[in-house]
């Protein structure tokens, strides 16, 4: 295993073989779809705070907004952000270009104009699947699988072609994540259409976890593992721990799925297995995170570099959200907080805290290494604080809401008591849109103003 990604610390070196245009295209698409997804989210949140606030148009109904929110975040925002990062990192990791720039344009077009945009529109028009992380209709899924295949050709071929004896840990996560998702995506989207009820739900449980754990997490960790040494110029603390973390994670994550259906009719042994895997996963994440944090120790990570600041913060969120995940899989906690807003808080901590911070860090890192782009560190600093505060308020708010709902339910009080108890928290949640949207808009502003990149040195940024 090699020590660190073969990228020099200097920002001035234009990275050989990087398809800069595709990095830029995907980064723009990522931030654009992010803002749209955020809008879907806040509209859905407003419906809960003030029912009917979104008007009574059929295509604006709560469920449809909810579907488009999460699909937009996963495919539009994170998908594009991952592609942007991969176009930057894969050539540097393999020493080879990606398969073809032409293919890249196809993937870009397919992903945004055949999958995300039509997916959104179809959902609003009433064509969808009632399956979590799989709400786009099956027609769209065909193209997602096609795009994932093409992405494998685009990004994995360089790894196979170069036949490297040793791979840097980011490469492992990229290869593992892309291959796994290629299989898991069709499973999660198609199997529940073919197997009814409880039997289909068993597979849905797997996919709910695979989407986050084997698509989003590996690619985010690939970013984190990549950006930390690239930005600090120091290798990862322990390569043994990196390796251990990787194998445990890929072994354990897929076995977590059934923890979404604890106390259901799915056989208890599968539930217990999944709960055990969830517990061990928490241990594994502690290993991964300890390794990462030890790697940034003493590097002045907070001030040194914006990309580094975001990915390190992502790592901290990753630790918190994973420990929370292990805890809430335990039966004693699960029976109370399952079905409540606690879980909604948890998924925001995962997707907005861990994943989005890693993606933002990856985008900033790649962006600063594109020739002739702008970067305004002050605005990015503001964006950082707005996003951190918006996120923390929201997660705290939803966690308390979840506890209030759980208390109302277990007291046997009328159902509406739980709705009334949650209402103030739902109202607060709407307001977290302000710091979050402002944060992301400042991020966009920070990447389109300020000094031109490619002239600056790392030392000065510190």
């Amino acid at each position, binding site marked *: 295993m090699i020590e660190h990604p073969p990228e020099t610390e200097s920002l001035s070196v234009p990275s050989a073989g990087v398809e800069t245009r595709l990095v830029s295209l995907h980064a723009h698409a990522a931030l654009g779809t992010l803002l749209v997804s955020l809008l879907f989210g806040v509209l859905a949140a407003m419906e809960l705070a003030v029912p009917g606030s979104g008007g009574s148009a059929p295509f604006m109904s709560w469920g449809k907004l909810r579907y488009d929110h999460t699909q937009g975040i996963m495919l539009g925002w994170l998908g594009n952000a991952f592609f942007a990062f991969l176009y930057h990192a894969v050539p540097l990791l393999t020493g080879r270009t990606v398969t073809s720039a032409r293919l890249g344009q196809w993937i870009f077009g397919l992903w945004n104009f055949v999958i995300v945009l039509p997916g959104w529109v179809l959902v609003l028009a009433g064509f969808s699947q*009632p399956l979590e992380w799989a709400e786009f209709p099956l027609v769209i899924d065909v193209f997602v699988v096609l795009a994932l295949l093409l992405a494998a050709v685009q990004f*994995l071929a360089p790894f196979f072609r170069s036949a490297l004896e040793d791979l840097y840990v980011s490469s492992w996560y990229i290869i593992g994540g892309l291959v796994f998702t290629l299989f898991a995506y069709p499973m999660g989207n198609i199997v529940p259409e073919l197997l009814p009820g409880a039997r289909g*739900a068993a597979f849905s449980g797997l996919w709910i976890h695979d989407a986050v754990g084997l698509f989003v997490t590996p690619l985010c960790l690939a970013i984190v593992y990549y950006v930390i040494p690239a930005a600090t110029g120091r290798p990862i603390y322990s390569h043994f721990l990196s390796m251990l973390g990787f194998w445990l994670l890929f072994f354990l994550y897929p076995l977590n799925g059934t923890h979404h259906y604890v106390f259901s009719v799915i056989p208890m042994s599968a539930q217990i297995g999944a709960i055990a895997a969830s517990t061990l996963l928490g241990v594994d994440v502690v290993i991964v995170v300890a390794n990462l944090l030890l790697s940034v120790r003493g590097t002045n990570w907070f001030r040194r570099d914006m990309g580094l600041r975001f990915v390190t913060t992502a790592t901290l969120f990753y630790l918190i959200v994973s420990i929370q995940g292990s805890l809430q899989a335990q039966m004693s906690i699960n029976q109370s907080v399952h079905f409540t807003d606690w879980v909604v808080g948890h998924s925001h901590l995962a997707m907005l805290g861990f994943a989005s911070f890693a993606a933002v860090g990856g985008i900033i890192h790649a962006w600063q290494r594109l020739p002739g782009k702008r970067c305004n560190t002050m605005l990015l600093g503001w964006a950082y604080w707005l996003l951190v505060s918006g996120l923390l308020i929201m997660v705290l708010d939803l966690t308390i809401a979840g506890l209030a709902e759980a208390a109302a339910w277990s007291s046997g009080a009328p159902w509406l008591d739980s709705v009334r108890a949650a209402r103030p928290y739902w109202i607060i949640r709407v307001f977290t849109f302000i710091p979050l949207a402002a944060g992301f808009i400042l991020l966009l502003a920070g990447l389109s103003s300020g000094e031109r990149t490619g002239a600056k040195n790392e030392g000065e940024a510190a």
Partner: protein
Amino acid sequence: MTYLVAAVGGLGFFALSMLLLGVWPGEALEEQIHQTSPAHPLPLSASEQRGRAIYAREGCAYCHTQQIRYLARDVSRFGKATLAWETIFDYPHLWGTRRIGPDLSREAGVRSPDWQYSHLFAPQTLVRDSVMPAYPWLFHGAPDQPAQDARDVLAYLETLGRDRYLAGPEGEAAAKKACNCSEDERKFAFGPGPLNASPAIPLRKGKFPLLPVSNDEARGRQLYSRNCAGCHGAEGAGDGAGAAGLHPKPANFTEQEYAQERLSQALWNGVAGTAMPGWRDIPPADLAAMARTVRNFHQNGPEPALPEGVLELGAKVYAAHCAQCHGEKGAGDGSAADQFPVPPTNFQTQRPSLAASLRAVKNGIEGTPMAPWSGRLSEAEVYAAAYFVRGFYKGGIRKGDGQ
């Protein structure tokens, strides 16, 4: 190395998880379905399927689960835990992972059709603090003008829990015996509790606690405006925003006198065959406070002078035309009473004003078996009967009692 990571990390662990948490539990579920399913569970009709598609499309499953977990807290609130076979027609499943609204696995028979339509059309008119979205586009502009879409959704809602209900006690016993399941599963799926534990199902003959006489006016008012005003109107005149689509209309409390027994019964059990739900999840002290509020809406109108011979004529008409439903002594227990979905009024525990009584006898009550009599009886007979029924009232506490 690349090959190893791709093959083991990407493909191998995926296959392992499929096997351990997908395929193998699937086989155990298949076995349980085989053991516990009734021989011929009723599949969904075309209309029910369309309703299901709308339910899926609108994301109802993201606020409502359809799985009662193997936990006391779920079973006591919703009913017996969901068995695997109950979802065998669900392509794809609608289990859900979030409960903003209640679980709907056993929604069949909980609410009357007019309640369901009005609720889909504009939930907050019936349930003030609900956050359920309105679905007016399933209607032709009014809650009692459902389009095919709304009919389909209702048809689908009426399938939720239907098969388990149809399996009956024999089916339950057979399933319990055949099921190769753990003690816990047995306890929660086949325990002694009701199949459907909803506190709102109207019970026609259910036992009910006689509510104490409350003097908590403020509490009564607060709870009334939260729970009842949407239908019965802010001042009890039966003219709440939700009343528009209901048949029969919510009772107008300003023109009714109620014995405490009647209020206790209506609040605890609801009124079968109408949109009036039961409120068994509200503590009796709170129900008593609302009963007080209801009673206090009554307005004493001037009682007209009694014309000669009315009572005799009334008794005659009543015995001939009304007693088979309302009962010889006006207790709502006539020989035909049980044949009708809405129980006939028990005049011993409830006294309409003369105007209300006349209106009911003349025009009937829409949405109930109480038919109009104006064509069939003479003006005098109608009047006499409407007057006569008011004499059965045994009263009880009056407005102002308990103060």
